[in-house]
């Protein structure tokens, strides 16, 4: 293969830059003579994006620090500072609180996929993806895989700490497995809200700020931290209607081995509705973006 002789610039460039420019001229004939591979399947595209999500964990491990530090602090503070007062002893409170903090962790985690999407859009990365002949949903498959990994890693760390502090899942291994699946479903469903935000909002920090501003009241006005029995009536109504409460109740039930089908179905209603309602919106916004 021959090296392409590049013509010198018609007008002389500044002297210092000339030799450098010649060094940079690559043997382009070699790199442009490669035949095209056959077009890959949609699944292969999705797996490539999933691989990218995994690489992100390798290169930016500190993202996990952000994700788990808040829930760890919440767990420790609530258990030891308020636990005794709220439930008689820290240990008893932990048994009540840990499923709730797992729900909170997964919901807060979902904000990060919106932030990641917004960052990709802002950097023009999605312009490249969208100008490729790939399955148009494939980039989202990558985001979802990244989310699932985040939920699993953060959830495992919190659960591990809980077990160390004396949390006991009386539902056993199957109950715990069911709890993990419910957590993933919750994360998946809530994730769509932030994908929409990520596509609509221009800057990643705005996605983050806006996301947490909305999520804090939603998470606190639930039965995650305390039993709503002592709340004023109007607030109790809010808490009882809050889907986050249903999710937490079902998760407690699964960990405790007492969950009913009705509870789980109620917990899954919101994630299912969000997925059905928002996935088409995400697609539309993505194609239009």
């Amino acid at each position: 293969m021959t090296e392409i002789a590049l013509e010198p610039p018609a007008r002389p460039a500044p002297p210092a830059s000339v030799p450098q420019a010649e060094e940079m001229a690559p043997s382009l004939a070699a790199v442009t003579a490669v035949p095209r591979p056959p077009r890959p399947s949609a699944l292969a595209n999705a797996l490539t994006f999933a691989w990218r999500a995994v690489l992100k964990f390798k290169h930016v491990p500190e993202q996990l620090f952000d994700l788990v530090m808040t829930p760890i602090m919440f767990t420790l503070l609530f258990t030891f500072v308020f636990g005794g007062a709220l439930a008689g002893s820290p240990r008893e409170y932990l048994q009540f609180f840990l499923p709730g903090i797992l729900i909170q962790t997964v919901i807060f985690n979902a904000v990060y996929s919106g932030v990641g999407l917004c960052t990709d859009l802002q950097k023009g990365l999605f312009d490249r993806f969208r100008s490729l002949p790939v399955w148009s949903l494939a980039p989202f498959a990558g985001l979802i895989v990244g989310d699932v990994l985040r939920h699993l890693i953060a959830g495992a760390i919190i659960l591990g700490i809980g077990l160390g502090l004396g949390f006991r899942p009386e539902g056993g291994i199957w109950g715990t497995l069911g709890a993990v699946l419910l957590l993933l479903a919750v994360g998946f469903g809530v994730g769509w809200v932030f994908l929409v935000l990520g596509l609509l909002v221009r800057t990643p920090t705005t996605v983050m700020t806006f996301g947490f501003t909305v999520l804090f009241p939603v998470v606190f006005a639930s039965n995650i931290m305390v039993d709503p029995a002592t709340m004023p009536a109007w607030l109790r109504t809010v808490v009882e209607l809050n889907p986050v409460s249903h999710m937490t109740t079902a998760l407690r039930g699964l960990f405790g081995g007492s969950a009913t089908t009705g509870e789980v179905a109620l917990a899954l209603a919101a994630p299912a509705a969000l997925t059905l309602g928002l996935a088409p919106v995400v697609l539309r916004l993505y194609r239009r973006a």
Partner: protein
Amino acid sequence: MPFDTSSALAIRARGLVKRFGTFTAVDGIDLDVPRGTIFAILGPNGAGKTTLLRMLATLLRPDGGEATVMGHDLLAEPDAVRGAISLTGQFASLDEDLTGRENLVMLARLWGFGRAAARERAAALLAAFDLAEAGHRQVKAYSGGMRRRLDIAASLVVTPGILFLDEPTTGLDPTARTGVWALIRGLAASGVTILLTTQYLEEADQLASRIAVIDHGRKIAEGTSRQLKAQTGSGALHITPLGPSDIAAGALGRLSGRLVHRSPEGGELSVPVRDAAEAQEILAALGREGVGLADFRMGQPTLEEVFFALTGGPRPETRP
């Protein structure tokens, strides 16, 4: 071949329109880009260059008009168009958290290369773009010139029929810019059609065989650099006097009967002339008057002057 080669045109666009709300970013542009050439879209910031490019790259749906790109209809077969093009956006469209190598491997996998073939492809591209040593580093640690090179490399994972380059040298230092220019010329020589946008007259002049000048979403002129310059109707005679430039300027003004323009450094004087014959007469007359010359040349007007003549408005930015 993944793209139709029957037409001699890489891009044929008619009456493309794009509106954002009440603002018309592209207002009926026709474009014929011959295959294998470098075609520049020249215009100031906000002229509609990027919008035009994004429409042709299937990223924006036109509100009016039609286009074929490498023989494929832009609206009816966007996926076929995507298979025939590559886009290097205005901002490096790379994953900054990943390494240069991983970025290229990812794109190679997306294009359908197998695991080993993708790694090989990435290595070949890194070597060709002088990034082999930086391949294992995260892109966020790259310099502007390295990013731009990686970005162009990323557009060549498979050889596109057309490479779209949106302001390929904006924000680069002169050395990196010269490097990118050499790259673009080399790519065109290997048969890739290149459509680039620029707000730098010098860049269009240096690289492109044809230039379309656009302003406020409309094409106001098109042609070769020479043709565009010819539209202003005249050239200029530039001289560098040996002696004091004031005396030479006086003589030049008197002999030509026109206003003398001094170069910013003051060393060069120029006057507009009708043709080469008139320039010769003036030079001979200067010689008779004893004005010694260190240098003289006959120049065409700069694209900058052309732009000013075409729009009558503010001209596009020039590089400092």
